[in-house]
């Protein structure tokens, strides 16, 4: 099975985010592979182990995004594709999908895997746009999956439970953080990753022009929201339960 996994390089989510004008500050913040995309990489690796084939990681981002690809390669993926171009700074979901589609079109993939939402951007729509641009069916919010000859059977999370979906391949899926337990990169994996190929592409290499990736949404203003004020904070000295019950009584819940 020839598999591509979309992986995003994001500012370390453990560092409190800061703004740099109208964009998230990225300079001076270490980047990591989006933890949500580790589930995609793991899904790809498990399918490869079961069915054979190859796992290709694809990312659009700054040059430093090669680190996110490295991490996926250390987990066991076979090769990477990184699309970097100054013209892509601040891209929206549509532009990101156009660029990734152009890169993925150059090869025949049976399955494309992405995360449900990125940790920093959380638009949640990039994968659906990508599926449409590639003319593929999609199943989002995958929490369990079985692949057999040419098709997938998936449990897809819904608001009240889950639906079972059958989908023919090639297809695109997005996986939730509950779908599996991503493996750690072993020392051997980290060493092997150094020798794995990462193809670096610019917009021009993909035959795209600045017009193709013009961003049609602009941040005009950022203002602080009305903040909720913190109320009383008490230490439990054995009477907290009674205090909560008082509060519930005042709120007429009891």
């Amino acid at each position, binding site marked *: 099975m020839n598999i591509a996994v979309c992986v995003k390089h994001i500012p370390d989510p453990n560092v409190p*985010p800061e703004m740099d004008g*109208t964009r998230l500050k990225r300079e001076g913040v270490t980047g990591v592979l989006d933890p949500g995309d580790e589930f995609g990489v793991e899904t790809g690796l498990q399918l490869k182990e079961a069915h054979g084939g190859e796992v290709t990681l694809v990312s659009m981002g700054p040059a430093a995004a090669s680190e996110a690809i490295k991490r996926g390669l250390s987990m066991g993926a076979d090769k990477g594709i990184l699309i970097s171009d100054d013209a892509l700074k601040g891209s*929206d*979901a*549509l532009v990101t999908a156009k660029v990734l589609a152009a890169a993925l079109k150059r090869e025949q993939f049976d399955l494309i895997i992405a995360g449900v*939402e990125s940790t920093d951007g*959380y*638009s*949640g*729509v*990039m994968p*659906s*746009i*990508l*599926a*449409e*641009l590639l003319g593929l*069916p*999609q199943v989002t919010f995958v*929490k369990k999956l079985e692949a057999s000859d040419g098709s997938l059977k998936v449990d897809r*999370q*819904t*608001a*009240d*439970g*889950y*639906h*079972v*979906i*059958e*989908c*023919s391949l090639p297809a695109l899926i997005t996986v*939730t953080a*509950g779908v599996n337990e991503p493996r750690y990169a072993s020392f051997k994996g980290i060493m092997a990753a150094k020798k794995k190929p990462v193809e670096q592409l610019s917009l021009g290499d993909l035959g795209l022009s600045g017009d193709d990736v013009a*961003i*049609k*949404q*602009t*941040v005009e*203003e*950022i*203002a*602080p929201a009305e*903040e*909720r004020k*913190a*109320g009383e*904070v*008490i*230490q*439990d000295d054995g009477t*907290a*339960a009674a*205090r*909560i*019950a008082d*509060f*519930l009584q005042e709120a007429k*819940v*009891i």
Partner: protein
Amino acid sequence: MSKIWVFAEVTPEGNVDTAALEILTKARSLDGEIAAVALGPGATAAAPKLGEYGATTVYASDDDVYGDFIAQPAAEALAHLVGEQSPDLILFATNYDSRDIAGRLAAKVDSTIMSNVTGLVSVDKAQTSIFGGALIVDVALQGAPKIALVRPKSFVAEPSGGSAEVVQVSAPVSEEAKKSKRVERHEEAASGPKLEDAPVVISGGRGLGEPDNFKLLDELAGLLGNTAVGATRAVVDAGWVPYSYQVGQTGKTVKPGVYIAIGISGATQHVVGMKGAKRIIAINKDEEAPIFALSDLGVVGDALKILPQLIEEVRTRKG
């Protein structure tokens, strides 16, 4: 006048997703002519309700194809309608199916799409909130049709008493669009009120230690009555409780009178789903936990000690 469309998810019984009614209500305050689009079984039956909340036209099709196959048939129908009618703005609620349909439509009509919308300023300006709601961002949208995914409970649904003309949609559906098929539907029925509508919500997080301790929340909810139990993503991903319990960015948005957060740190992605609660109580053993910054009553302590005491206390007071 601009044309504003609201995509509404409907049930086979003709019920309309509340979030669509909220968005219709808000759309009435923008300068435009409002239409709703409903696709799948129940669409025509849902039209009067959509009219009551502000749609003057409802584009409807009851065809099973829209319920049976994921996203593609609906995106095709919408793209067909867009070609005919040239709307300026298409609004979707952030629901599982709508999200996929909106994304595919954006690709088909080559339009920008904005997610996580929490406010609408005009036909070409929308708002989102970031950092757990600390900052409001105004975003100008260019091109047409502009597409936006609006978070549920961003607006309050109020009927206007109008009525809508129904236009049956007869867009062709390609064979290509029938590849991702829904074959079974499973509902994880919870007892008590629906999480989204409950006047009181008690949510548990990883601080509860183990899945079994959710029983304490169920017990307290049962005693209080009219109370739903929710959870963080950390515990639904760990399989402690079903996904349908999840409150937050990827889960449900709740706005109860009282929200009780137990063993929950207060990550921004959880907070966006519950910060609209009228009153918030938090129990957490770490006094630095971010959840305390938005709590009306914060208790620093061990939830597993306090919960049984609270259950007894409530039992006694209820008599």
